[in-house]
């Protein structure tokens, strides 16, 4: 044994990364939303009973337990219902902190999804803020929500919280 080894510190930590490789199959309804992203538009589905619009849709209404078949193309404009300021650095982070992750309610939709907010200082984002989707360049569009770069303010007046309270 060499002297160099004898002065090494005892082992106290062990790196044991856990890794799971799997294939995700989106199913018919979600694939339609994914194909919508590749075409640069939001595609949802409407419940035939309660008329709520789900985007992305899973192919059925969780309230009425019926298939959702009517396809609905939604606009790029939306409202921030609620949001979170991300201040914590973590492995694999690709955006400079602080940044905003928001619940996005597209105009005409009845459920929210998570979206990145840019184009406004983090401390100026508020509930009811009007935003619009900014898509990646056409040649970079693909069947993934990553086709939406972020949402940015439209400059329209904020929406009253009472108008989207049921979506919080």
């Amino acid at each position, binding site marked *: *044994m*060499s002297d160099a*080894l004898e002065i*090494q510190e*005892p*082992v*106290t*930590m*062990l*790196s*044991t*990364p*856990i*890794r*799971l*490789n*799997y*294939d*995700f*199959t*989106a*199913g*018919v309804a*979600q*694939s*339609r939303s*994914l*194909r919508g992203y590749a075409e640069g538009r939001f595609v949802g589905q409407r419940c035939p009973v309660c008329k709520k619009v789900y985007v992305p849709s899973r192919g059925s209404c969780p309230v009425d337990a019926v298939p959702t*078949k*009517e*396809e609905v193309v939604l606009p790029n404009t939306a409202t921030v219902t609620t949001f979170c300021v991300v201040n914590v650095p973590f*492995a694999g982070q690709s955006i400079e902190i602080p940044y905003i992750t928001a619940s996005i309610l597209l105009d005409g939709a009845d459920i929210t999804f998570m979206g990145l907010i840019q184009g406004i200082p983090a401390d100026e984002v508020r509930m009811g803020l009007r935003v619009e989707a900014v898509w990646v360049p056409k040649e970079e569009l693909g*069947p993934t929500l990553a086709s939406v770069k972020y949402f940015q303010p439209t400059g329209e007046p904020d929406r009253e919280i009472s108008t989207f309270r049921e979506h919080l």
Partner: protein
Amino acid sequence: MAEPTEVYTSAHVLEYPYSRSVGPVIGAFLTGLREGKIVGIRGENGRVIVPPTEYDPETGAETSGFVDVGPGGVIETWAWVEHPRDDAPRSTPFAWALVRLDGADTALLHVVDAASKDEVTTGARVTAHFLDEGERQGRIQDLCCFQLEETS
């Protein structure tokens, strides 16, 4: 709307960069591996436990006293892996074996390198084969395998 829709499938990876503290006993075992040796510990009734544990698995009493064991040992039982999976320690066929090292009373699960399963037998003598000194990092892979001893 009735047109067939392509159903998308994509490969996903879920990975956590996880670290754990190993404690004084497993720490000593891993430190030993980094030094190119195998360390066991003495249990309550004098049995030598390899890999070492903090408590005697039979009595629950605290263990004490590290003991160097091996590098030779005996195959207690084994299973041949004809088609190693991606995360196996070998890309070619090998045996998983419980190896009772010389001086130990329990067996260690590890790889036995062999060209074919016909070479592996219960009771066969094997010797620990370590990575070169500069490549050892204090983990079980420092002990890269057991190799069958030449029978003459």
